[in-house]
């Protein structure tokens, strides 16, 4: 870099020379900054029940809606939220107080995925992807939905269809595996024995790529991007490097299936939930393997000859980029594209964990939203930290049914606020940064 460093006295002197009235510029900047902060709504005194880092506050945008899944935020701040069991919510804060005065419902079918793309609202049910044409300024689309992808496998277990748009403008859709570890008839039970998943994986446990403008595509006409995952409900494009990142739900019940190798305590801490780069031809190792949350090694599943120690040495499977605690259940993933939050949060991603059900005898855990730092090349640094916590309302949680809330959707608003949805009692939070304690 040539020239004086930006903060040096020489540079400031130059600035003073070329700017005749620097104090005016400074006041104008301050005015802009305070205007931006003045536009933030007043947070709730209790932060909507959440525990946040110092300087962050929250308010409840809407409450007592149906169980919510993913959300998308439009450029004008309108929220679109997919419901778990039926249709879509459209929320609008008409008077700028941060609360949604307008709550509309439209569409039908339960599901998970939702995203805005080129003036369309895309959403997924458990077996298809649809889109609605949005009219600028209109909250609710008026026309009928157009079906973009149809006939995706829907066999109840792991049937959520998360999706995202790549840097190539293509639509990437997940199809889960209705299975724990492909353990045959006794999958999830004592004595589960792995079966050959080759044929099954032709249509399950992967991501598929589709043309976002072409109606009625099927898996057969789409491109099979990746294989070998159990279920993934987290996929997002990192604008820094134009790559898609996904998170995967690890298997359950190691100790139920193979008590000779795993104690209940072992199972409460294994296997890891993981983050991967999504790339053409990737294989993420399911159902043969899992990732040990402590050693980060890829180990053989007990259904496929594992004993808690045997490490996979096939070299066929991608290594995880971030390893998360067992059973936390990663849901929506969102890169932070705003500037409202402090420098440290820019360029990284927020991930909502729905929280565990399979950690007994330890308390259930992971009902939180975490922040995952990424480097300047757009790759995760490998760590994460809790960002928003106390969704469950209790720390000593025996069962998910006792949790007050379960975070599911997370998305960034046009002003850099972070929105979070609740899959349990239908609450929507908005997180803002004021810097005040």
């Amino acid at each position, binding site marked *: 870099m040539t020239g004086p460093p930006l903060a040096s006295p020489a540079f400031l002197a130059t600035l003073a020379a070329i700017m005749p009235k620097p104090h005016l510029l400074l006041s104008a900047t301050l005015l802009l900054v305070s205007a931006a902060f003045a536009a933030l709504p007043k947070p709730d005194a209790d932060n909507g029940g959440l525990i946040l880092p110092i300087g962050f506050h929250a308010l409840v945008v809407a409450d007592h809606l149906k169980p919510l899944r993913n959300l998308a935020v439009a450029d004008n701040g309108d929220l679109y939220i997919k419901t778990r069991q039926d249709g879509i919510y459209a929320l609008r804060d008409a008077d700028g107080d941060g609360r949604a005065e307008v709550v509309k419902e439209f569409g039908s079918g339960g599901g998970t995925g939702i995203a805005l793309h080129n003036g369309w609202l895309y959403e997924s049910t458990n077996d298809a992807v649809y889109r609605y044409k949005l009219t600028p300024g209109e909250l609710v689309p008026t026309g009928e939905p157009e079906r973009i992808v149809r006939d995706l496998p829907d066999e109840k277990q792991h049937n959520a269809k998360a999706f995202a748009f790549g840097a190539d403008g293509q639509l990437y859709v997940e199809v889960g595996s209705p299975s724990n570890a492909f353990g045959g*008839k006794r999958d*999830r039970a004592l004595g589960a024995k792995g079966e050959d998943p080759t044929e099954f994986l032709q249509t399950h446990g992967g991501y598929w790529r589709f043309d976002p403008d072409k109606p009625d595509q099927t898996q057969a006409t789409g491109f099979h991007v990746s294989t070998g995952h159990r279920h993934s409900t987290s996929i997002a494009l990192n604008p820094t490097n134009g790559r898609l990142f996904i998170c995967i739900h690890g298997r359950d019940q190691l100790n139920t299936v193979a008590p000779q190798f795993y104690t209940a305590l072992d199972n409460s801490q294994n296997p890891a939930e993981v983050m991967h780069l999504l790339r053409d031809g990737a294989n993420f190792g399911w159902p043969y393997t899992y990732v040990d949350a402590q050693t980060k090694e890829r180990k053989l599943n007990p259904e496929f000859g594992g004993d808690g120690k045997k490490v996979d040495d096939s070299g066929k499977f991608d290594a995880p980029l971030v390893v998360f605690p067992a059973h936390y259940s990663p849901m929506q993933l969102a890169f932070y594209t705003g500037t409202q939050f402090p420098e440290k949060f820019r360029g990284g991603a927020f991930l909502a964990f729905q929280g565990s059900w399979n950690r007994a005898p330890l308390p259930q855990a992971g009902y939180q939203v975490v922040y995952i730092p990424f480097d300047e090349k757009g790759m995760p640094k490998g760590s994460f930290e809790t960002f928003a916590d106390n969704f469950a309302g209790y720390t000593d949680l025996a069962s998910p049914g006792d949790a007050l809330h379960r975070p599911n959707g997370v998305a960034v608003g046009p002003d850099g606020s972070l929105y979070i949805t609740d899959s349990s009692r239908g609450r929507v939070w908005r997180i803002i940064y004021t810097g005040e304690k």
Partner: protein
Amino acid sequence: MLLLAACSKSEPPPVVAVAAAPTPPAKSGAAVAAAPGTERPAAPAAAPVQTPAPAPAPRLPEAAPAKTAASDAPKVDLAALLKQGEKIYADTCATCHMADGNGVPFMQPGIDKSAWISNPDPQYLLSLILRGAEVVGAAADAYDNKMAPQDALSDEQVAAVATYVRHRFAAEPIAKPVTPAEVAIARARPGLPK
């Protein structure tokens, strides 16, 4: 813990499915289906069930069995059996149905006061344990996860855990032990009792 317990009672997501068990639900079994405060309609009430409801067998007096039956029936150490069943429940069942029997919303049903467990005839419960969700029919569709057959457990283990859940989770505790012989009958039968 009191708070937790109180809270779980008002949990909105589906607590149901038991509504379609093949017997007239025990008194409080129906109450489970209609959790207060839920906006959702209860699961389709009693989906068509192939098996006719068996005539409810007269319930044994709760307090009596241990002493009165002592003369003829082989002696069963109920306390030891319950202890064994508790261990099997914790190792095999609680992972999905939770230690408190309340299940996981959307994923696995609660079993507390379930009609399957509350039925005086243990054969329905035994079929469910040994064959899994396939004997439940359409009601199982309310949940993401399908119960696998737990037929890798021995007759003795199934008898112990069945005795335990009937004692702990039936609408009214059933003290009468389930015997390995009864488990063997259920194991030999392809589906639910005729």
